[in-house]
């Protein structure tokens, strides 16, 4: 019994240890080193990289912007996702179909979905063409390469992460409670606020964390839709590892990002005991 289990787990243990934990440990070590003359890593050991990340206003601005963009995207996902989840939960027999319709675009290429927004939002894109044709604007509007485009791309990318957890709590909701509320004279809006929303709270918190985490670490969306001015933490990491060639600093930012992700997950874990794995 034991031998088979050992060999079943061995390949994954080796691979995750060798290609996931070991690489993380390496950048953890690099984050306490100094950038060498030719871009390598050298001693002395120092916490300088972390100090720089928190002290230099340029980097605190990027950190703050990442939180702002991720927070805004999460909020909009909630505003769109909650009504959608409620609609799906109430749709009876066609529930499965509606859930599939949420998931289908999600699983098709993230890169292509981001590119689709470039196609729609650029100066000669469909949105500007339509707006000019309708006479709303004479000149094309600068829709692409700004923070709003990044937020839009992130909402589009991660909305399903909001819908699914909220749907699953709403789906298990005891319908009798809503009937009781209405028998006691509550309008649909009051019972939504006082019954449905509080009971759906675990799903709402779960959805918010699941959207916030990938948004905070986003790289592709700010890179393609944001242009140079909307740099987020992910872009800063990439930048340090490529053009700036400061791997120790890039490693420190990576670890700080991981710490933020862990903190977000910890809030989630405290509220619900369900395990993903």
């Amino acid at each position: 019994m034991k031998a088979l289990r050992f060999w079943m787990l061995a390949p994954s243990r080796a691979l995750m240890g060798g290609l996931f934990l070991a690489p993380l440990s390496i950048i953890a070590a690099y984050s306490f080193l100094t950038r060498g003359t030719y871009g390598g890593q050298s001693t002395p050991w120092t916490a300088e990289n972390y100090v720089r990340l928190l002290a230099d206003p340029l980097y605190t601005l990027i950190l703050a912007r990442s939180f702002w963009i991720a927070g805004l995207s999460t909020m909009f996902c909630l505003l769109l996702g909650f009504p959608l989840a409620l609609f799906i939960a109430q749709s009876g027999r066609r529930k499965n179909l509606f859930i599939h319709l949420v998931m289908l675009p999600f699983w098709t290429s993230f890169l292509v979905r981001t590119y689709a927004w470039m196609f729609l939002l650029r100066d000669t894109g469909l949105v500007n063409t339509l707006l000019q044709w309708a006479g709303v604007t004479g000149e094309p509007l600068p829709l692409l390469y700004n923070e709003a485009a990044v937020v839009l791309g992130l909402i589009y990318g991660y909305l399903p992460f909001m819908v699914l957890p909220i749907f699953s709590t709403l789906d298990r909701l005891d319908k009798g409670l809503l009937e009781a509320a209405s028998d006691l004279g509550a309008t649909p809006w009051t019972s939504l606020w006082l019954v449905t929303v509080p009971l759906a709270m675990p799903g709402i918190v779960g959805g918010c964390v699941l959207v916030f985490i990938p948004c905070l670490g986003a790289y592709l969306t700010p890179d393609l839709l944001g242009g140079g001015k909307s740099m987020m933490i992910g872009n800063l990491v990439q930048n340090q590892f490529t053009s700036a060639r400061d791997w120790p600093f890039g490693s420190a930012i990576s670890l700080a990002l991981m710490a933020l992700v862990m903190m977000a997950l910890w809030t989630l874990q405290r509220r619900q005991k369900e395990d993903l794995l």
Partner: protein
Amino acid sequence: MRRALPAIAALTYAFLHLPLAVLMVFSFNESRFTVWEGFSLHWYRELFADARMMEATWNSLFIAATATAAATVMGTACAYGLWKRGAPILSGTLYLSLVTPEIVTGVSMLAFYQFLFRYMDLRLGLHTVILAHIAFSIAFVVVVVKARLKTVDASLEEAAMDLGATHWGAFWRVTLPALGPGIAAAALLAFTISFDDYVITSLVAGVDSETLPMVIYAMARRGVNPTVNAISALIVAGLGVFILIAERLQEA
């Protein structure tokens, strides 16, 4: 609320589906601009004539197929190993790999490879990409196969062993066949994730291992190009079919 809810839902569905639908429609546009000038397969012809694009497509297919095969076998074995008794460190690591931002996974693998290359005469190339893809798709396979295992009755294996089967025999002939649809779904998802990855791949790829997402990214950076619309439409259609099959299998 009765009327508001379906209206909001309809708008949200339009938001989710229209961008890709529009992109696909315009890939058949004669014109290079966003004005409809008639149906044409012009951009598809151009796409198939593009040697760089075709080579990248083959690279992507090869990488995704190899990584999927390895990740599916390893991930299935892992899910089975975790079935009756947990392994907190391994589960924790897999969970961590799911939530780690792609850019962090990518740069850490790059740093790791470069560190190894100091002691070995190797370079970045297809092999480093494939290894990275196996590592980041295993967790997805484990999640899907584990969900399937929850529906399997553990006492069937015990019955098989009582009747004289070895533990391996019981796994191979009783549990594994019952996992079939789950494993197939996991493989399709792993393929989709691998085929689409840009962030990690671009960091660990060498000069000879440009993938399709890397070409699309480079072209998108230079501005919108109708050939990208064409390849995007093919990817959406292809992966869309994969996903539909995967979802069917997971329900079965």
